[in-house]
């Protein structure tokens, strides 16, 4: 029932670390925070899912929504996700082809973002 969001900046990346369970109850908070980050002008965003215990289709929808919003502004949204149980959700839904999924925040923020 918990969701914790923690933000920091690395270079020109905004990094949002998510901890806890992302479901239809908690996802609105994740969505609001992402919209806030984007409307503050961030173009390159990393969502770090390493601390996520559970992610459902609503959570996927929120990430897809943020990605669309960023792309339409020439921005980019990358993910950090190594946990098999969470990665699997992206694989089943084909979203591994849509998101750049990295092994670590360092790896994500050292890329060009394109």
């Amino acid at each position: 029932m918990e969701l914790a969001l923690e933000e920091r900046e690395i270079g020109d990346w905004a990094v949002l670390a998510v901890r806890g369970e992302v479901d239809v109850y908690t996802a609105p908070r994740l969505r609001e925070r992402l919209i806030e980050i984007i409307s503050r002008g961030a173009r390159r965003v990393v969502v770090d899912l390493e601390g996520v215990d559970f992610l459902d289709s609503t959570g996927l929808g929120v990430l897809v929504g943020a990605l669309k919003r960023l792309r339409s502004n020439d921005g980019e949204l990358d993910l950090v996700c190594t946990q098999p149980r969470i990665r699997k959700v992206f694989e089943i839904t084909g979203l591994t082809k849509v998101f750049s999924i990295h092994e670590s925040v360092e790896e994500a923020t050292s890329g060009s973002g394109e």
Partner: protein
Amino acid sequence: MEDRTVELRIPARTELIALTRLVVSTLALTRRELDEERVDDLKLAVSEAVTNAIESYGTDVEGKAVTVFWTEQSDKLEVRIQDVGKGFDLSRLAAHPPVTDSARLQFERGLGIPLIRSLVDEALFEPSEDGTSVCLSMYCGSLSYTGDPAAL
């Protein structure tokens, strides 16, 4: 079979979906035959079905409930999720376009049922005007407890 069924009935409130996940994964974990990955799969599928059940009431959730039935059969675990919401037409669900960067991005919703179908061994959707019953099965050979069967 009646006496092998655990039943959890929750008010149609999204903050209680986590409880249904906890109950289902706790019950599933007492079974030797399901490894952790399959337990996670079942947990996610149940969570999606309970989410849909709650959403079937729209904003009119007052007094509405969702019931989850957990039944152990000789060769499978079965979880039934039941609501008395408005039902739906399975044949009219939008098909997702093939996965390509551009078209795929149109779909922020509609991922639940496809996920359910790929996570469990069998998913049966029975929508009606009186509500929807979704039956999810995981096959697991003959069942036995991981706990010690000693009883007082």
